[in-house]
């Protein structure tokens, strides 16, 4: 076993250890064992960082890959199914290493942050235990090398999300939200499982590599429509987990969970699992499936952005922003901007975690006030939070010099390239929605920053009926404000501040790319190149043979083979077949992602067009961001446009956005009402028809039983009883003959003799 594999097993199991210890013993440990959770996650992060260092920094090879598996379940040849062998395994490539480092880092920071945020909670220890099981499941998804394993961890992630959303289960809203999240995910998971089964039915394996190799060899026995269907069904898992339309409704409600959970699960990691999964299966998606994915992503990005504009709850704005950004990632995958989408996944994870933890700090400081209308002026009281939150906001809005700009720009360039390569028309809708959403993102984040941090405190404006502090009307006066400050808002402690600083630092462009305007020059997009499709476009089936192996995926044509030992132990340990590929480091470092040569003409055209579109994309997106921010300034800073009056002027639109496009109501009216009606109908059928049949059978049986019982009682028992009665009566009569008196016997003897003589003589006479 490769040493990296051993380390990754440790990374996987340590959080599980944390969970097991904390869930059983947290009440017996000092401080409810929080130091254990933080310590274990710190260790896990350190190991992950070492893996990241070895793989991404030291090896610096786009094709790096280490794999290990073992047979988990061997059922032999199952009739009707074929050989059923389930393997478990781990694969480490660049993407895995990056994801490991990202997940463990954010998880560690959230653990640290929670020691401050959750302090004093009655279920403090259990919270850390749940964080542990979540981290374990998420790492399982990242490390899994086959569809079966990823499905198991997928469900585990769903479970931990369920537990954490409903952490305050005393609140009805939290209990409802956790159920909603679980059910919405379940809908997606059914599709995912069906997709897995379609692939399994063809190849009798769950392993990515084997499935891709079989597909590349053209062994898919059904029509291409089935392959498209498999891709879309697998994508349904992502729709559920990554909150894409139409299953996005659970994510905003999931904000009922504690804020650190929102940061870890519902912004940075779990929701990204869907995107990660689609990236893992990217090469088997057909062009049609990719189109569906692109449109769903674009629509989700746009819709969520429009909703985020009007929300009052600070976490809800961020939640819809998350849905919107996940839409970007899905859009990116759909248009073939694979590297860009994953790049956005990572950058988004950091700045969105920062935003959520920042909002948690604000909520903590505001004594659990979440409504932005009653905030304001926090800049002076919370300088650290303000600085980090603003930096992350700029990254989210996609301003140049931030990480978000690099990744979002790459996605939008990909979208333009896609639209060009596909021949325009309706495909231009995708980049259009992307740019429009980018503008709205800048607008609503500007609005949020302004409402929360600038201006004067509006705590006193809050209607008195649900006022936390119970201030009087004269609180508006200066000295009262001062009075409020003294016991009210204050900066959070170091254990909550440190994660903010780290995450904000990771939102700067320099972490990812030396060029503030071009992410493709950075290490991320070089190390995670777009793999070549194994299914080809519908026009060129002949490409099946050229894309001989998915290990070819870099598409970099290099004459030189890897000199043995050139890259140290890691390269040596690569499986054969990978080691013999060109390692591609040269081209990966110095070339650009868009310049890879793909054997598939469609993919090559898109990559080429995306490369061409890079500069226009930069310009348009910068303009859009500036437009969005200026609009926010005009509305909220200079108050040239009064937001309330504007909202009143376009009230139907405002309400449409404020009520989240009425999706909840639509689902309530269709699916939920429909289910209720359906279950009522079924219940009626059950009580009247099914039960009627059962009861009818019962009645008939009862009648038959009564008849047969009567026969038994009166005829059979009667015969038996009569025999007994007869014997009894006869016995009673005959008993009287036996008197015990000798003389009676003598009399009887005499009578008998006399009787005999009478008989004898009558015979004699006749």
């Amino acid at each position, binding site marked *: 076993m490769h040493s990296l594999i051993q380390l990754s097993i440790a990374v996987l199991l340590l959080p599980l250890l944390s969970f097991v210890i904390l869930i059983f013993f947290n009440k017996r440990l000092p401080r409810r064992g929080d130091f254990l959770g933080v310590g274990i996650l710190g260790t896990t992060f350190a190991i992950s960082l070492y893996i990241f260092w070895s793989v991404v920094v030291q090896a610096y090879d786009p094709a790096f890959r280490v794999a290990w598996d073992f047979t988990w379940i061997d059922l032999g040849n199952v009739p009707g199914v074929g050989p059923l062998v389930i393997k478990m395994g781990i694969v480490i490539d660049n993407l895995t290493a990056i994801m490991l480092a990202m997940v463990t880092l954010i998880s560690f920071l959230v653990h640290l942050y929670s020691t401050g945020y959750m302090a004093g909670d009655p279920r403090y220890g259990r919270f850390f235990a749940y964080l542990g099981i979540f981290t374990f499941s998420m790492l399982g998804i990242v490390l899994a090398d086959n569809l079966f394993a990823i499905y198991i961890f997928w469900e585990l992630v769903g479970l931990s999300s369920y537990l954490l959303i409903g952490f305050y289960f005393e609140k009805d809203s939290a209990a409802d939200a956790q159920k909603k999240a679980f059910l919405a995910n379940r809908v997606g998971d059914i599709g995912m499982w069906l997709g897995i089964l379609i692939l399994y039915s063809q190849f009798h394996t769950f392993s990515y590599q084997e499935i891709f190799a079989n597909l590349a060899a053209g062994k898919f026995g059904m029509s291409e429509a089935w392959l498209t269907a498999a891709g879309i069904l697998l994508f349904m898992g992502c729709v559920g987990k990554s909150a894409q339309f139409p299953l996005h409704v659970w994510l905003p409600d999931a904000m009922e969970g504690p804020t650190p959970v929102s940061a870890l699960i519902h912004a940075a990691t779990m929701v990204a699992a869907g995107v990660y999964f689609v990236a893992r299966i990217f090469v088997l998606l057909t062009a049609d499936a990719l189109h569906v994915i692109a449109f769903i992503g674009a629509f989700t990005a746009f819709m969520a952005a429009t909703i985020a504009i009007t929300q009052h709850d600070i976490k809800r704005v961020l939640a819809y922003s998350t849905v919107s950004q996940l839409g970007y990632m899905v859009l990116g995958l759909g248009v073939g901007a694979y590297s860009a989408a994953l790049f956005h996944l990572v950058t988004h994870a950091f700045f969105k975690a920062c935003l959520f933890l920042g909002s948690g700090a604000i909520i903590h400081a505001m004594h659990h006030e979440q409504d932005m209308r009653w905030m304001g002026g926090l800049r002076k009281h919370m300088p650290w939070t303000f600085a980090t939150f603003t930096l992350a906001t700029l990254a989210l809005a996609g301003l140049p010099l931030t990480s978000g700009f690099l990744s979002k720009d790459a996605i939008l360039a990909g979208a333009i390239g896609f639209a060009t390569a596909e021949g325009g028309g309706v495909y231009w809708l995708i980049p259009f929605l992307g740019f429009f959403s980018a503008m709205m993102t800048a607008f609503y984040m500007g609005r949020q920053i302004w409402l929360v941090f600038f201006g004067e405190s509006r705590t006193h404006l809050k209607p008195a009926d649900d006022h936390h502090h119970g201030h009087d009307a004269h609180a508006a006066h200066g000295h009262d404000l001062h009075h409020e400050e003294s016991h009210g808002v204050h900066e959070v402690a170091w254990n909550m501040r440190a994660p903010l600083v780290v995450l904000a630092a990771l939102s700067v462009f320099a972490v990812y790319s030396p060029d503030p305007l071009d992410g493709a020059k950075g290490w991320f997009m070089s190390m995670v190149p777009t793999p070549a499709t194994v299914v080809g476009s519908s026009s060129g089936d002949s490409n099946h043979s050229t894309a001989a192996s998915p290990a070819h995926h870099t598409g970099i044509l290099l004459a030189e083979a890897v000199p043995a030992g050139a890259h140290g132990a890691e390269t040596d340990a690569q499986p054969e077949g990978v080691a013999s590929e060109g390692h591609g480091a040269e081209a990966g470092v110095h070339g650009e992602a868009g310049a890879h040569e793909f054997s598939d003409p469609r993919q090559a055209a898109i990559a080429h067009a995306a490369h061409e579109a890079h500069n226009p994309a930069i310009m348009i997106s910068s303009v859009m961001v500036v437009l969005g921010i200026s609009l926010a300034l005009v509305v909220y800073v200079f108050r040239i446009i009064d937001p309330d009056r504007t909202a009143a002027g376009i009230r139907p639109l405002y309400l449409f956005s404020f009520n989240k496009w009425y999706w909840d109501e639509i689902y309530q009216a269709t699916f939920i009402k429909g289910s209720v009606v359906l279950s009522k109908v079924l219940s009626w059928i059950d009580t009247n028809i099914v039960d009627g049949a059962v009861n009818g059978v019962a009645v008939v049986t009862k009648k038959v039983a009564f008849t047969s019982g009567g026969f038994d009682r009166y005829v059979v028992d009667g015969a038996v009883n009569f025999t007994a009665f007869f014997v009894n009566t006869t016995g009673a009569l005959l008993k009287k003959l*036996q*008197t*015990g*008196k*000798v*003389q009676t016997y*003598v*009399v009887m003897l*005499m009578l008998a003799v006399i009787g005999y003589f009478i008989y004898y003589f009558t015979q004699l006479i006749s």
Partner: protein
Amino acid sequence: MELLTNIGLNHYLTISALLFGFGLFAVMTRKNAIVILMGVELILNAANINFLAFSKFNGGMEGVMFSLFVIVLAAAEAAVGLAIVINIYKIFRSVDVSAIDTMKE
């Protein structure tokens, strides 16, 4: 008067039958066990008369031999019967046969 002067077999048999009837009557009606034994003696003697009468009119000696045996047996029977009666008396403190009905159960 011929009936009284010319004594034949029927006379013996009639006497025997009467004697048997008395004996039987005594056995059936008396309560005292000893009286019952006496009734039994009457019955045995009725039989003896029959044996002797048939012997006389047939001319053989078999009837006489039989009646001698019967007399011997009667003596033995009386001894055994009285012993039984004594034992009964020891157990039941009575020789009333109507009281001795434990065979009923």
